[in-house]
């Protein structure tokens, strides 16, 4: 197959595939900021809520938690729906079963 034809084919495949499969979610980077600002107050070592990091749960466990709002609603009062989606996205993206940095520590 000619090279140009192949690339056209690949590009066509790319646009077709992404149009069907692309997912929308929260902003993970902003979620990290919101998590540190709002959640770590209670969820750090020695604090009232005990230490919580993204690694505390799996991706589906985080999603279940946010879907069913298994949390003291008062603590979430200051967070908008979009904020919660961002925090959920951050925790999901860095959950215990997500891709992790492959460093030695």
């Amino acid at each position, binding site marked *: 197959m000619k090279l140009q034809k*192949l690339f056209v084919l690949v590009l066509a495949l790319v*646009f077709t595939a*992404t149009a069907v*499969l692309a997912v929308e979610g929260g902003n993970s*980077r902003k979620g*990290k900021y919101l998590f540190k600002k709002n959640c770590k107050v209670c969820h750090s070592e020695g604090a009232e809520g005990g230490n919580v990091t993204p690694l505390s749960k799996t991706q589906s466990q985080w999603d279940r938690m946010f879907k069913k709002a298994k949390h003291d609603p008062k603590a979430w009062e200051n967070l908008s729906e979009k904020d919660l989606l961002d925090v959920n996205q951050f925790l999901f993206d860095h959950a215990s079963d997500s891709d992790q940095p*492959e460093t030695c*520590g």
Partner: protein
Amino acid sequence: MRLFLTLILAGLIALPTAAMAAPTLEDLQLQIKALSEELEDMSELVEQAETHVAKDRINWYGDLRVKADAVHYDDVTFNPGVKVDFDAFAANMGAFSTPLTALDGTVLTYDETASPNATNVYNLLVGNGFPAAAAKNLTPLTSMMLANPGMVDGFLAGQLTGVKNFSFPVPQKTYDIDNDILYSTRLRLGMKAKVSNDIDFTGRLTMYKNWGDSTAVKVFDSWDAFTMDGTNSGNTTGDLVHVERAMFIWNDIADTNFYLSIGRRPSTYGMPTNYRENEQRGGTPSGHLVNFNFDGVTIGYKLSKVTGVDGQTVRFCYGQGYESEYGNGELFGGIETEDTHLGGFNIDLINDGMHAVQLTAFRAQDINDGFKGVFAFPTAYAPLFAPTMNADMQKFPTFNFVTRYQPSATIGNINLAGIGYAYEAFNGASFFGSLGYTGSESTGEAGMFGGMLSDAVFEAQLNDTKDEIIMMPARAENDKDRDGYGIYVGMQLPAPMGKFGLEYNYGSMFWTPFTQAQDDAISSKLATRGHAGEAYYVFDITPRAFIKVGGIYYDYKWTGSGSPVGEPKEVDDVLDGKAYSMLPAIDTAWDAYASMTVKF
């Protein structure tokens, strides 16, 4: 779990009691019996799952990348030659002029009228006091000059004194190479296991092959075509699965912030190369300076737990890149190289998800003129170095014998230093910049391909049967310290359906990082002595699958990118025939690629 189920049971019992008319005692007993049976079934299932988890010692994960590269090289030049000490040559002229004889003792001669060069050889010898009859004798010297007209011209011009270039009797060739499609598959299988609360095991198995080849050995036409320990994971080596990483990490040693990790290191795909890989940080050291498999040790201190700065970690790393004796025929006592050790500091000043600053300072001690490894002997070298072998090899032009190479000289040390910064904005954009420095120190020794960023000086000597002059490396042309620097900048912007990235890097004449395991099809772009630019588009299909389309353009200014062995030459000089290069020199190259990666 049992407590949870009991609470559910209690709730289920309480709810109908409150909500409906009071059931009979018999109804309640039946409900309790049914729920108890269900509870037993669930407990059994939980135990089975628990048993499975307990026996499932290793947690596997991985990714698979299939890639198509269209690779093009422009103005590849093969113009081999070496530097020869002609003063040493002249000192041996008597031995080199010993007449060669047939088996019956008859002195062999050549026809001085057979070619203009043969006439020149004859005239040269007569002009230097040889009797007319003796000047016609076939000797190791006359044999060599008959095969090397340029050498005769040099002698005639009185230029061959001191150290001079010596060209091999092959004409310079300059050509383009178009490999329209090069397919490859890279499979990486990650492993994690919990040894105890503080000790973890982690590893990664890698197979990286180009389609239609599982020989694991390539014809040696560049240092990338060399199957060796440090680059196995980054160069296609057939369908073999290599252990790219295998180490334990012992955290919180004695309840301190120290950790220890020993084994085959995570020393590939480090920051900031992870952006173009569209993955998390793939290794500990700066990817601009080190992308090379090492076996070694890291002692780290999580300073962030003291200072509160996210990700702040200080690490001392030590590794061995070359074992000089074991496996190298040490029992014969002929080893003259040293073990190569690498040590230094790798410091993350901050890594908080928005800002990342990394400092690197390493020293590679006792570098040799290569590594031990395997390649297929290039047919093109046979007439240059092995005329006797070539006599038979030319009958089998496609038979490349596989050989194990090992270096022969300890050529010096290299210091590496770098600082890198990456910024990740809320809107998904990322920007990074990295400055690198490599400084070499030479021992003045050299092997066949040269010394530390210096050419080898060859001295002529007779072979064991005294009938051929052979050139053997004697020393490096110089033992100067050489400074090299490199810059690497890039950005990645959110774009429809994914991300768009632009990167640029430059390496100076003596830029010599350890990034040879970077798995680019042409060569590690970050090792380029010259300019390299890349543009790519990543289509994020799902969080665990993406397609990447892009291209890399290489503009080499100097030869020998990625190797500390040999003096870098200006590519233009090689093109113009003013400089020699033992390996083909590439002027420019580009690689257009498309890949799809799935993570699992």
